[in-house]
Structures are given as C-alpha cells and as structure tokens.
C-alpha cells in the first residue's frame, strides 16, 4: 500500500508535465532506434557472410590449397586419393556474362563430404542430371532471374545459395570457366585415417588449411561494419544526452516530493527502488518503440548498404530485413542500459540526499567553477591520451578510439571554452543589457551544455565525414580520369571471338589494350594479377604513388611489377622488394599505384609476363584508344560485326558514371546517419530549451519589471540561442577537421588500405552552418513562442507574495 501510494505521487509529476515525458521517451526511443537499426543491418549482412562462408563447409572443413595460389594439378589430386586422403576437388572462378558476374563453384558430389554440400543440393534427386551433360546449375532465385536467357546449363533454384553464386558439377564448371582439368582446392572430409602420410610428402607445394569460421567476406567488410557501428553508437550517445537532461530535470523538480515522501516515513531504499522501477518501465516502453523504429530505420537503410557491399566488396546481402529475436532482446537491453547510464547520477543523488535538503530547482544546472576545472583537466588528459594513441597505436580499433577520444575531449572542453568566452564578453561589454545578456547566458550554460555538447558532436561528425567524403570524391574523380583512359571497353563472348576482335580492330583504333587478369593468392591472401601492355596510355596516365625512373620499362620487360597501395601498406612492400606470385615465380616491386574502391590486393605485370606465367588467362576484355568522336561509330560497328550485347560494350563516360554511382552509394548510409544524428542533436537542444524555459520566468521577470519589454526579452532569448549555436559551430570546425584527418589518414588506411589527401570545402561549412542555425532556431521556436505569449499576470506571479 505504502509503495503504491508513493509511486502514485511520483508518477503524478509526469501527468502534470506530459511534454517532459514525451521528450524522455522520444530521446530514448530515438537513441535505441538508431543503434538497433544499425545493428539490424550489420546482423543481416553478417548472416549473409556466414552463409557464404558455409557454402563449401569452409567454416567447418579443412582444405588443401597450393602455397603459391596456383591451381592444383589433376595428378596431385589422384596421388592424394591413392595415398588414402579422402579429399574432394573443387574449382572456383568468375564467369562474366556481359555485365553480370557469376561466382561459379564446381564440385564433385560423389566425393564431397555432407558438410560441404549446400542444403538442398546434397539432397537432390537430380544427381544424374547434375553429373551428365548439359549438367545442372544451382543458383538462388534472384540469380536465376538475372541469368535467364544466358547460354548456361539448365538452372535450378536453391534456397541455400546466396545471390551471385552458382554451383554445378566440377566438369561442367571447368568447361564453363575454360579451365579444363584445373582444381582450385580440395575439401578434406572429416574423420581421416590417422596414419596418412603428410600432404607435403605426396604433393609438394600443397598445404592443409584449417577451417575459416569468419570467411574472407566477413573479414573484408569488417571495417565497413565497424564504421556503421561507430556512427550508430554516436547517434545513440547523442540521443542519451536528451534522456540524461530529461531525467535530471525530472528528479530535481521532484526533490520536494522526495523530501516529503522521506519525511512521511518512506525509506531511502524504497524511494530509490520505486524510481528505478519507474525508469525500467519507461525503458521498456521506449525500448519497444525504439526497436520498432529501428526496424524502420534499418529497412530504409538496408538497400543502400546492400548496394554498397555489392559494389565495394561483391558481397551479396538481401535488401530486406529479417526480424531476429536476439535483435529485439539486444534493443531492449541497450534501451535499459542507456536509461540506467543516464539516470545513474540522479539515482545516486536521491540515494544520498539528506532528509532536510532544501528544494533547489536549479541545482542540477549549477556547475561550480571547480566542476568546470575538473572537466577541462579531463579533456586535456583525454586529448593527451588520444595523441599518444594516434602516435604509437595501430589498427582499426585504435583509429576509432582516436576518433572517440577526440570527440569526447572536445565535448568536455566545450562548456569550459564557452564559459571563458562568455566571461570575456561580459568583461568587455559596457552596456547593462549586454552585460546581463552575457552573464545570464553564462548562468544558463550548465543547463544547456549537454545539448550543446550533443550539437557539437553532431556538427563535428558532419564536418568530419563531409570533408572525408568530399576529399574522397575529388580525389576519386581525378583518379578515375587517369585510370579510365581508354575511350571504349569491349568484352568478347569467348576466346575465338576475342582473336577475331583483335584482328578486326587492327588499324581501326589507335591502340588495343588488353585487360586480362588472373586470381590467386599473393602473400597468403586472395589477389588479382593484371597484365599491362607497354603503351603511352599507362605511362602517361596511370596514378603512381611511388616509382623509379624506369618503372614502366621494368614492367614491360617483365623484371618489375606494380602493386596497389593496399598491398603495399598491408605487407609493407616498398620499391625493390621481391614478390612471389601465384605459380611460384618471383618479381620485384617497381612501383605503387592508388587503387581506390578495391578491397583486394592487386599486382600489375607486363602483358608478356602474364601470358608466359599464366597461359590459360582469359583474353576477353580490352580497352580501346581512339578519338572520342569515333566512339559511337565504332561501338555500332562492333555490335553489328560481332553481335555483341550492349553490356559488352561500355564507353568511358558510362563506366565513370557507374563507378561514381557506386562511390556515392557507399557514403549515402553514412550521410543518412549524419543527418539523423543532427536531427537528434536538434531535439536535444529543444528538450533543454523547453526545460530551461519552464524556469526562466523568475529570472526574466525582474528585468521586465525594471523596464524591458517582453518583445526585447524574446529577442534576447533568440539571440542567446543563435550565439551559442554559432560558437558551437565554430568549435565544431577544428574538431570536424581533426575528425576528417583521422578518418582519412588513420581509419581509411586501416580499413581500406589507402590514404587520401585532405581537401577543405568551406562552401559545405556554410551550408552546414545554415542547417545548424535552422535546427537551433527551430528548437527554440516553441519555447520562444511560449515566452512571447507570457501575460503580465504570469510574470507578476513571480513577485506575488501570496502565490
């Protein structure tokens, strides 16, 4: 009974202040929504990677591969089987079907262990059809739709395969890929005999690889997901500012009620427990709303993320979200955690509150000088730790820790800087109203600083990410101009047509540049090896970051290779270092080139060296140099002469457009999260201003009584919001630029393996400033309108003795 009565008294506060309750629930819901939305996207993508990793049982079964990444010979497979090894051959390769790429996997269903068979394929009744010509090609429903009409074996839909992957018999796959007798890897069945001779003894150059639970795709995309998680967390933290502010105010406003309840015999433990129960109730309500909202956010953002992952990493992620119970649970847990974290200080105060503590409605907002000093010291310590971390640490987690340290340090320092600035302005001013304005603004600071810190975080993130994206865009566009120098790109249907094409093109274009490549392992990781013709197109345009005077001569004569920045950074390879390539031959690094947007290591060797070491290389793609005005005519002629589908002929402009589209898509999610964070910060500002406005009258009424009009007071309040927003924006500039530098020079290098020059875009700042001011003014609109509508009788209540 006692508890129910006390709870009813505590809850009556919210009945009288519904807006405060709405702000609390909204802040918590938004924080949970942005966090759980991002988590939903990550979970969906990771589930896809797991399926990809499980396609051939790679997450559970050992594999035998070549040390150099070269194909395994049929004879080596036979030797292993004869020695008693239960192994099953697999071939993998990429099949180009116009613009569509199909990752083809060829298996031998008779020797493949059950763990290596993808779900319904192992249980097929079509074994005979699978094994005998024309064979069967298993693909996902989505891929089947894309492949209809292509000259492929009959398609059969499998629910266990990801989009973009095709599985067929090894013989059929070898034929389709043009690699007869070639084996990429051998799957080792579980439960091998213990007395088997080691693999190395039977076939030199082959090794057993342990199962890979994570998978290449998961590893490659780790940085992307960490990036998303970091932004999700930032949005969550900004949302918590609202919650902290709303809870702090509600607790202080109820201090008198707490005191009364305590004096009427309610133990401190019970009071704290009741407040905790109240908060848990709010957390559950807001958590459910947040998870639902998060589902919405996730659903809206997921198609963009899926397109990015496809474009950037070739990862296939479905565009729709699945509701997972663990995701619901984690959303509610994070809401609960956020509420308790935001309320911890207030609950502690209630727990420790002396029975006779006076009610001080503004005590929560009063920050002592020593508090600010402590905050400044913490910020300086944090900056020092961040600088040390940046100087001596490495890795993506360190990169994000540096970002976190920078943002948190700046947020802590903001109120200190604002207090110093306002004190200086107060000292410099001579007019009484101005003096009061600066002094009063300084007094409001503790109540507003949380919202301003949230605004600083959102603005800094916007400036930082905006600078990074714009720098990237500028560099990437210039780089594309260099990289895509050929005017037309053509892909033949098969080798015979490619030979005809080469003959036909002689004399019709200025140069025919082969774009031939093989895949293989370089220094233990998958890589691409491209052949490059000795042509001025490359000598004049190729974007080299490091070179020697005779780089291109070395490449042309086959004594040197170019490597991309990713490979150079990953393995610390410099010019002059030797490099072993698939097939076991060695060359020397003769140059490093920038290769944005490519997650894989890449090596470029002379075209002669490529055909010498990899005679089976597919020779289907070419870049053609010709006067740009002839592109249309030649395309038409090629199409007619060789009956090429439109997707096999791509001009430079379309290719650039496509590349830029992928680029824009990559950052669209980050941009969306940025805007959402700014929105949440605006809401935090609104919550704080609303909170303060309820306590402003006693401070404004005496000024009004001494001869200022209500209109002047409203204008001064408006000016205060604008001044604080502008100062916060100015403070956000260096923080944002620091953030951009860390993103470009630390995080990108760790995540993608490339470094970008930083460019400054003041035009973007002006736009952001306008947006920030608009958000601030919008957040101040309702409180100011309320102030403007305050009647003299409301102001008089401040002076009334018999209130």
């Amino acid at each position, binding site marked *: 009974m006692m508890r129910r009565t006390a709870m009813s008294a505590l809850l009556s506060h919210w009945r009288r202040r519904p807006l405060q309750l709405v702000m609390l629930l909204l802040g918590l819901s938004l924080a949970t929504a942005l966090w759980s939305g991002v988590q939903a996207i990550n979970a969906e993508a990771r589930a896809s990677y797991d399926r990809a990793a499980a396609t051939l049982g790679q997450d559970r079964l050992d594999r035998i591969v070549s040390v150099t990444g070269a194909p395994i010979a049929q004879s080596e497979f036979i030797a292993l089987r004869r020695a008693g090894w239960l192994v099953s051959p697999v071939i993998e390769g990429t099949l180009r079907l116009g613009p569509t790429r199909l990752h083809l996997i060829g298996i031998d269903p008779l020797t493949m262990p059950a763990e290596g068979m993808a779900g319904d394929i192992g249980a097929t009744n079509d074994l005979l059809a699978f094994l005998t010509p024309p064979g069967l090609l298993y693909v996902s429903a989505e891929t089947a739709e894309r492949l209809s009409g292509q000259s492929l074996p009959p398609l059969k839909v499998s629910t266990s395969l990801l989009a973009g992957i095709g599985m067929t018999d090894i013989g059929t796959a070898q034929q389709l890929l043009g690699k007869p007798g070639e084996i990429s890897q051998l799957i080792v069945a579980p439960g091998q005999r213990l007395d088997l001779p080691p693999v190395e003894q039977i076939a030199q150059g082959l090794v057993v690889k342990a199962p890979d639970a994570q998978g290449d795709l998961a590893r490659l995309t780790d940085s992307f997901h960490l990036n998303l998680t970091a932004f999700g967390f930032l949005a969550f933290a900004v949302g918590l500012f609202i919650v902290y502010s709303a809870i702090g105010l509600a607790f202080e406003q109820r201090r008198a009620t707490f005191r009364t309840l305590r004096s009427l015999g309610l133990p401190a433990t019970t009071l704290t427990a009741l407040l905790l129960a109240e908060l848990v109730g709010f957390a559950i309500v807001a958590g459910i709303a947040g998870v639902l909202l998060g589902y919405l956010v996730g659903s809206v953002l997921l198609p963009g993320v899926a397109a990015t992952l496809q474009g950037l990493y070739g990862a296939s992620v479905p565009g729709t979200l699945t509701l997972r119970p663990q995701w619901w649970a984690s959303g509610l847990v994070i809401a609960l955690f956020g509420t308790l974290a935001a309320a911890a200080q207030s609950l502690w105060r209630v727990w420790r509150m002396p029975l006779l503590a006076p009610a001080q409605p503004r005590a929560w907002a009063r920050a002592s000088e020593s508090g600010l000093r402590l905050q400044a010291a913490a910020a300086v310590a944090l900056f020092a730790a961040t600088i040390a971390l940046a100087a001596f640490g490495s890795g993506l987690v360190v990169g994000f820790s540096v970002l976190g340290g920078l943002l948190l340090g700046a947020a802590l320092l903001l109120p200190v800087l604002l207090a110093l600035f306002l004190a200086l302005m107060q000292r410099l001013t001579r007019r*009484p109203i101005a*003096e009061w304005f600066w002094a009063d603004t300084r007094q409001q600071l503790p109540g507003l600083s949380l919202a301003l810190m949230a605004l600083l975080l959102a603005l800094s993130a916007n400036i930082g990410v905006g600078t990074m994206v714009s720098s990237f865009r500028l560099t990437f566009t210039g780089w594309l101009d260099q990289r895509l120098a050929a005017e037309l790109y053509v892909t033949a249907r098969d080798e015979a047509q490619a030979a005809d094409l080469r003959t036909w093109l002689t004399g019709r274009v200025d140069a025919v540049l082969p774009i031939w490549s093989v895949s293989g392992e370089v220094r233990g990781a998958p890589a691409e090896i491209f052949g490059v013709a000795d042509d001025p197109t490359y000598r004049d345009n190729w974007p080299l970051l490091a070179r020697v005077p005779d780089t291109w001569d070395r490449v042309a004569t086959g004594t040197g290779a170019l490597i991309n920045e990713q490979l150079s950074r990953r393995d610390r390879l410099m010019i002059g270092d030797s490099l072993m390539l698939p097939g076991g031959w060695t060359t020397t690094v003769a140059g490093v080139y920038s290769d944005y947007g490519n997650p894989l290591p890449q090596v470029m060797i002379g075209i002669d060296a490529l055909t010498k070491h990899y005679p089976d290389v597919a020779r289907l793609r070419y870049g053609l140099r010709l006067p740009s005005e002839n592109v249309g005519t030649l395309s038409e002629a090629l199409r007619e002469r060789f009956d090429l589908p439109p997707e096999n002929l791509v001009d430079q402009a379309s290719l650039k457009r496509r590349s830029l589209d992928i680029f824009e898509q990559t950052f669209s999610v980050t941009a969306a999260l940025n805007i959402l964070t700014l929105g949440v910060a605006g809401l935090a500002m609104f919550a704080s201003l609303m909170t303060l406005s309820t306590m402003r009258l006693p401070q404004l009424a005496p000024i009004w*009584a*001494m*001869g200022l*009009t209500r209109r002047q007071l409203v204008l001064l309040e408006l000016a205060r919001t604008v001044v604080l927003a502008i100062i916060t924006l100015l403070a956000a500039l260096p923080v944002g630029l620091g953030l951009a530098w860390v993103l470009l020079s630390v995080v990108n290098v760790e995540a993608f393996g490339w470094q970008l020059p930083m460019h400054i875009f003041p035009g973007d700042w002006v736009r952001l400033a306008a947006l920030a001011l608009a958000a601030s003014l919008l957040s101040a609109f309702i409180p100011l309108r309320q102030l403007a509508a305050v009647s003299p009788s409301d102001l008089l209540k401040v*002076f009334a*003795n018999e209130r």
Partner: protein
Amino acid sequence: MLVVLEDVSKSYRTAEGPLPVLQGIDLSLDAGQSLALTGESGSGKSTLLHLVAGLDHPDHGRIMIDGQEIGGLDDKGRAALRRSTVGLVFQQFNLIPSLTVAANLAFHARLAGRFDAAWQQALTTRLGLEQLLTRYPEQLSGGQQQRVAIGRTLAARPKLVLADEPTGNLDEATGDAVMALMRSLVAETGSSLLMVTHSHRLAGQLDRRIHLRSGRIDQTVERAA
C-alpha cells in the same frame, strides 16, 4: 500629485468566473510623501502596487503617474515608465542571480541612464555592502539581499519607490534596520514611497496608511505630525 488613481477596478478571470480584486479605488500621493497599503491576504494590496508600477492594466479607471496617464501607454511606454520613473523592491528580493552585487546595484541606474558612481559609492557605504560587492546573490543572507535590492532601486533615483512587503522575508530586527535605512534613503533622494505591508507597526512609520478590505479602501489614517 505624483500618483493619482481614479475609480480603479481590477478583477481576475477564474474558473468560477471573474474575481473582483480592486473596486473603485481613488487614491493620490504627493511627491516626497510615503504611503503604506495594509490589509488581509487577498485584499488587493499587491495588485494595486502592480497597477501603479505599470506591470498590469486596470479594467476600469485612470492611473496617472507624474502627470502621465499610463492607461494609454503601450508595452514600450510602460517599460520606459518602469525604467525611468518607478523603482521596485520585492519581498523575494528578485536580484539578478548571474550578476555580482556591484553589477546588481548599478543595473537599474544604468538602464535608466542615471548611473552616478559617487552616489552608488555612498549608497554602498550606507547599506554596508562594501565587503560584498564581488559576491553573487546566492552567497548573501536574506537581509543582505534586501539591502542590495533597495540599493539597486535607489541608485536609479526614481521619483516613485514601490515596495511590496520589503521586510516580509526578514526577522524583526533585520526588518526594522532595513526599513529604517530605506525610509531615510528615500527621504534623502526626495522620492515618494508606496509600500505594501502586513505590519501595522511598519505602516505606522509612514506618512499615511490606507487599509484595504475586499478590494475597497476601508480606512485611511494620517500619521500624527
């Protein structure tokens, strides 16, 4: 006449309908004179004071301050009246919490454009505030805050000082001391004083006392010469 009220009425809107607070008040105050308004709680004393200060509008009647009919003034005009002609002292002190004692003392005078450093210095000494100038209101006792509030009003040398229970939050000894100081300083500046009080003892110290009952003047008592 510095203050003239003619047939002034005021009522507040409540859920139960209009609640008359003042009815047919006629009152005047000469320059340099002091007048106490007494009465029970809810008799309309504070409302009358607020109407004279231009903080609120009467429903009916005329209020003239220093020859100016304030009923015709807009918000700006009333603000100017409060800035330049009237000085207010409240029971709750209503100091500006963000300003130091020194800045609070000078604030109204500077707003009115009548800041006089010598006069402020003299007031500071008379009010015993020399040691407190750099402190903030929250660091002062009630008596000290009220002395600052009186100093703030008198620093502007207003023609009319309006005080609403200025000693209501102080103990008797402190209240008497503050009151004595205020009366003497008001006399020095030549201002008129209109003070709301519950205390007949304090009211008796002013030139005239008007007792209000249910919004009407019930009794007027002149101090014996």
